[in-house]
């Protein structure tokens, strides 16, 4: 009987557990997660915050599912270290060793945080974060001069802007780059997004970072009514500050165990780490992408679920290469934003731009040695599937 241990109970880890159980009825599966909840969809959190769905509809697995599948789910638990020589992990809360035959690391990432303890600051990764944001929004109900600020220029910033608009709260958005996703989008795409924000009366402060945050009138003042957000571009008053400045990965405890890490846990295209019997999948993995020949990090839903399934298959002995043209879509005030494949401008030899901000639709194509490896679309989804196919087949 094989003992499978999966560290990280998000969509990658849970998908792996499900896949393992499908193929191995006998094995002992332990899933270790930091959160207390059954699996839920982080992608649904904005729907929940905006009241489009009730809280219970965020859940992807019923509580009973874990028992039915004979998956032992250790909640509110962390792994402190891995002993790859003797094949066990050390549980931090329980303070005991847990042996494994096959180990999967799916610990994902943590939102980069700012160093300030002021009420009214929000992050948006977990269900608990969403509950907290709803509480803060509830406290602002009926406050006519309420204002919000968003720190960041990426997917989470878009979610905050959509949410604050939904609640009718005027918003200032500041970000470090000249425009949103400046490592991915060129000027034409960037200007298009900026014009969409301005059209909806968002005050946009590009090339601006956070300098300091304080509670107005010092700590202990009533409620979270006012945060003084000092930026490199001046002072923004906000009752609510949404932070979306990227994802960090805690790799030190993994590195200490002798597993190779770089920006993430390094794996080959089979999601195998440098140590035998250990796989990695999802946001934490930095894998060799057979489609581009480059190391890639995921960071989206589709990548996480597909890698989880692939790793699960491999762990039961059906060694499977991970091949996927990843893609992610969001929208800002109804304007589509779609990323497909490898969209790192720094790695591309050439980025071809089609359309203009004025036309309301811009497509970028990323080439590496003459091959199409990625694409972005803002304000359009025309050719999305054609481009995905072309990236996959070239």
């Amino acid at each position: 009987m094989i003992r499978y241990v999966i560290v990280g109970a998000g969509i990658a880890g849970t998908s792996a557990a499900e896949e393992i159980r499908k193929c191995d009825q006998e094995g002992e599966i332990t899933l270790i997660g930091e959160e207390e909840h059954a699996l839920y969809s982080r992608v649904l959190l904005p729907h929940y915050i905006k009241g489009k769905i009730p809280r219970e509809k965020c859940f992807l697995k019923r509580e009973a599912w874990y028992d039915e599948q004979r998956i032992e789910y250790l909640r509110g638990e962390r792994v402190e270290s891995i002993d790859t020589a003797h094949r066990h992990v050390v549980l931090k809360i329980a303070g005991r060793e847990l042996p494994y035959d096959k180990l999967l690391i799916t610990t994902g990432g943590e939102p980069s945080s700012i160093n300030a303890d002021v009420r009214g600051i929000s992050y948006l990764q977990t269900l608990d974060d969403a509950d907290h944001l709803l509480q803060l929004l509830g406290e602002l109900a009926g406050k006519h001069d309420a204002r919000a600020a968003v720190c960041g220029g990426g997917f989470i910033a878009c979610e905050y802007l959509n949410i604050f608009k939904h609640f009718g709260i005027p918003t200032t958005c500041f970000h470090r780059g000249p425009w949103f996703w400046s490592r991915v989008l060129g000027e034409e795409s960037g200007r298009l997004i900026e014009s969409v924000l301005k059209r909806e009366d968002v005050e946009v402060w590009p090339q601006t970072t956070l300098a300091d945050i304080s509670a107005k009138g010092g700590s202990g003042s009533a409620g979270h009514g006012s945060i003084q957000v000092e930026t490199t571009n001046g002072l923004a008053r906000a009752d609510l500050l949404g932070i979306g400045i990227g994802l960090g990965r805690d790799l030190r405890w993994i590195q200490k165990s002798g597993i190779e890490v770089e920006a993430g846990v390094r794996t080959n295209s089979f999601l195998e780490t440098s140590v035998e019997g250990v796989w990695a999948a999802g946001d934490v993995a930095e894998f060799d992408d057979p489609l581009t020949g480059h190391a890639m990090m995921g960071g989206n839903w589709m990548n996480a679920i597909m890698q989880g399934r692939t790793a699960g298959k491999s762990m039961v002995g059906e060694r499977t290469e991970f091949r996927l043209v990843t893609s992610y879509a969001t929208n800002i005030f109804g304007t589509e934003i779609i990323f497909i494949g490898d969209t790192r401008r720094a790695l591309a030899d050439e980025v071809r731009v089609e359309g203009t901000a004025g036309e309301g639709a811009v497509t970028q194509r990323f080439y590496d040695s003459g091959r199409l490896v990625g694409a972005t679309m803002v304000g359009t989804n025309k050719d999305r599937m054609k481009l995905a196919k072309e990236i996959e087949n070239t």
Partner: protein
Amino acid sequence: MKLKIKVDPDLCIGAASCVTIDPATFQLNDENIAVVLDHGSEPGGRVYEREMEVSEDEYETILLAAQSCPTLAIFIYDEAGDQVFPEA
């Protein structure tokens, strides 16, 4: 077996996981919302809901596609009209 497959366009965000897993059953329309196909074809046009006859294997793929949807926007009903996914 006979199935009814439905996409809720209010929930769909165009993540396209379903299209990646089962392009014969799901495609995106011009609004970037998933529509339901019958074995790659679209009799009656681009619709969010369709009844069709599928094999066991095809059903497995359709279920996998629905399970991979990050917003649970895909609903599957059996011949009796009972919802088989998401489990209510």
